[in-house]
C-alpha cells in the first residue's frame, strides 16, 4: 500500500508573524520557513507504517513555490521515498489544493492520504475533508491513533468530548493531530541520501485544475493588542485585586 503525504511549507512555528504595515498580508521576507508541524507528524506516521510493513511506499507532495523543495527534502530525509512538487507562486486555497491532490491520488492510487489537520498559516482545517469529499472516500480527521486492519483503518480522533474511534474502509483520508506521534529528526546521512531521492516537478496546469481564488483578502490587521497589566506581590494582593474587579466573590 502506498501512502501519499501532502506537506506544506509554512512560517516556522516558533516565530511571531509580522503583519505588513499596508495591511496586505504577512511579511514573510527573510522569515524562517519549515514544514507545517502537523505534516511532520503525517510524514512520521507514514514512515512508521512503512517500517511496520503495512505501507510499501511513501510519497510526499507539496504545492507551493520552488523553495517548497526544501520541505520535500525534509520529508525525504525523514524517510519518504520520493516527492512531487506542484510548483506555483500563487497562494493556492484549500479547495484547489484538494483538487490537485485528488488528481495526484488518482494517478498514484494510495491506500491512505495522510494530511495535517491544519496548516498553521491559514488555519483553515479543511483540505483533508475536502479531498475526502471530492474522492468519495471516508475521512479520519484529528487522528491520535491509526491502525490498519486488513481492508480497513481504525482511527482514534481527538474530539471535543474525548477520544472517538471510527472504522474506515480503505482507501481513506486521514488528518493528523498532535498526539499521534513525535516526529523524528533526520540524521545527517539521511539528509545526504535524501538529496538523491527522486523529486518530480509539476504545475497546477498539468492536473487541469483551476486555481482561481474564491476568497479575496480585503485586509490583514494586527489583532487588538492586549496591554500587560500589573504584577502583584503576593497572593493576598491578587485576591484583593480580583475582588475589586468583581471576578471572584
Amino acid at each position, binding site marked *: 500500500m502506498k501512502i501519499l503525504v501532502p506537506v506544506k511549507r509554512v512560517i516556522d512555528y516558533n516565530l511571531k508573524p509580522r*503583519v505588513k504595515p499596508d495591511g496586505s498580508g504577512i511579511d514573510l521576507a527573510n522569515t524562517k520557513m519549515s514544514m507545517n508541524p502537523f505534516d511532520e507528524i503525517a510524514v512520521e506516521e507514514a514512515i512508521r507504517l512503512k517500517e511496520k510493513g503495512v505501507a510499501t511506499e511513501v510519497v510526499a507532495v507539496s504545492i507551493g513555490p520552488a523553495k517548497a523543495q526544501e520541505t520535500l527534502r525534509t520529508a525525504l530525509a525523514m524517510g519518504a521515498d520520493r516527492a512531487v512538487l506542484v510548483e506555483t507562486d500563487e497562494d493556492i486555497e484549500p479547495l484547489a489544493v484538494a483538487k490537485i491532490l485528488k488528481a495526484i491520488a488518482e494517478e498514484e492510487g494510495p491506500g491512505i492520504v495522510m494530511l495535517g489537520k491544519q496548516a498553521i498559516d491559514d*488555519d483553515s*482545517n479543511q483540505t483533508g475533508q*475536502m479531498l475526502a*469529499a471530492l474522492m468519495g472516500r471516508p475521512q479520519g480527521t484529528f487522528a491520535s491513533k491509526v491502525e490498519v486492519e486488513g481492508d480497513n483503518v481504525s482511527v482514534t480522533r481527538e474530539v471535543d468530548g474525548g477520544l472517538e474511534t471510527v472504522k474506515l474502509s480503505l482507501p481513506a483520508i486521514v488528518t493528523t493531530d498532535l498526539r499521534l506521534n513525535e516526529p523524528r529528526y533526520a540524521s545527517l546521512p539521511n539528509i545526504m541520501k535524501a538529496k538523491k531521492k527522486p523529486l518530480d516537478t509539476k504545475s497546477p496546469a498539468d492536473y487541469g485544475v483551476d486555481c482561481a481564488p474564491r476568497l479575496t483578502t480585503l485586509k490583514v490587521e494586527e489583532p487588538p493588542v492586549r496591554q500587560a497589566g500589573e504584577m502583584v506581590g503576593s497572593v*493576598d494582593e491578587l485576591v484583593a485585586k480580583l475582588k475589586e474587579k468583581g471576578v471572584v466573590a
Partner: protein
Amino acid sequence: MSALVLAEHDSGKLNPATLATVTAAAALGGAVHVLVAGGDDAAGVADAAAKVAGVEKVLLASDAAYAHQLAENVAPLIAGLMDSYDAFLAPATTTGKNVAPRVAAMLDVMQVSDILSVEGPKSFTRPIYAGNAIATVESSDAKLVITVRTTTFDKAAPEGGSAPVEPVSGPGEAGLSSFVSLEASASERPDLTSANVVVSGGRALKDAATFEQLITPLADKLGAAVGASRAAVDAGYISNDYQVGQTGKIVAPELYIAIGISGAIQHLAGMKDSKVIVAINKDPDAPIFQIADYGLATDLFEAVPELTGKL
C-alpha cells in the same frame, strides 16, 4: 438570503455552541433554519432548537446513520438540502470542522473557517497565523459555507422561539465508515468552552496527580472549568479535550487563570480574548505576563494552595 445552521448536540441535548452559530447566521440578514441530524434522541434536540429565538424552522433528520455525526453520512444530507439555502453554518467544534469542509467541497465552495464577525453579506473576519493576524475575506462563491468561532458571537436566547419542526431525510448510510467507540472524559465541571471561569495548568504541574491536587481544588472553589496547555496534555497530566490553544479549544471566560504556563503563541491563541487573565509563573520574564492583567511571579506550589485557601 437564507441560512442553514447545523445543530451541535450530544446525549439528546442542544449544545450552546449552536446558539452562537444562530446569531452569526442571523447576521447574514435572512431566515435562519436549524438542521438537527441525529439518531433516536434527535427529536428532543429538535424541540430545543425550535425554541431558540430567531429560528424560523427546524429540519429534523432522524436516522441511525446520523447518530454519530459521521461526516461521510451527514455531509451528503446537508449538501442535498443546500438547494434551498444561500449559506451553511456550523460551529467551529470538532464536529463542525469535520463536516463543513466536506459539504463545501461537495458544493464546490471554498469554506470560510472560524469567522469572528460578519462584515457584509459575503465578507467576514477570521484569525490566521494562530490569531496573530485578523484577515477580512470576501467570498465570490454562489453559496457560503462557514464555521463560526462561537466565543465571539453572543448566544441566541434559548427560549422565546416557536419554530415548526419538519422531518427531512437524506441518502443515509454511505457505507464508508462506522462509529466504534467514544471514550468520553466524564466531568461534572462546567464545559470548558462556555465556562465563566477557567483554571488552566501547564507543564510545571509535574504529573497527573499533582495537576489534580493543585488545579482541581482551585477550580472547585471558583466553579471553574479546567484547561491545560499542550505540554500538560502531551505529558499525560490530563486528556486531550482540555487543551486550550490554536489547535485545541478556544475559550473567552470572564476569568482565566494560567498556572505554570509559559504563554507560547499557540496557547495564547486559545485564551487571549478572556476578560481578565491571571498568570502564576515563577519566571518573571515568561511571555504570559505580557498579556496578563494580574501576574504573580512566584512558585506555584506555594501560591496555588494559598490562593485556594484564601478565596
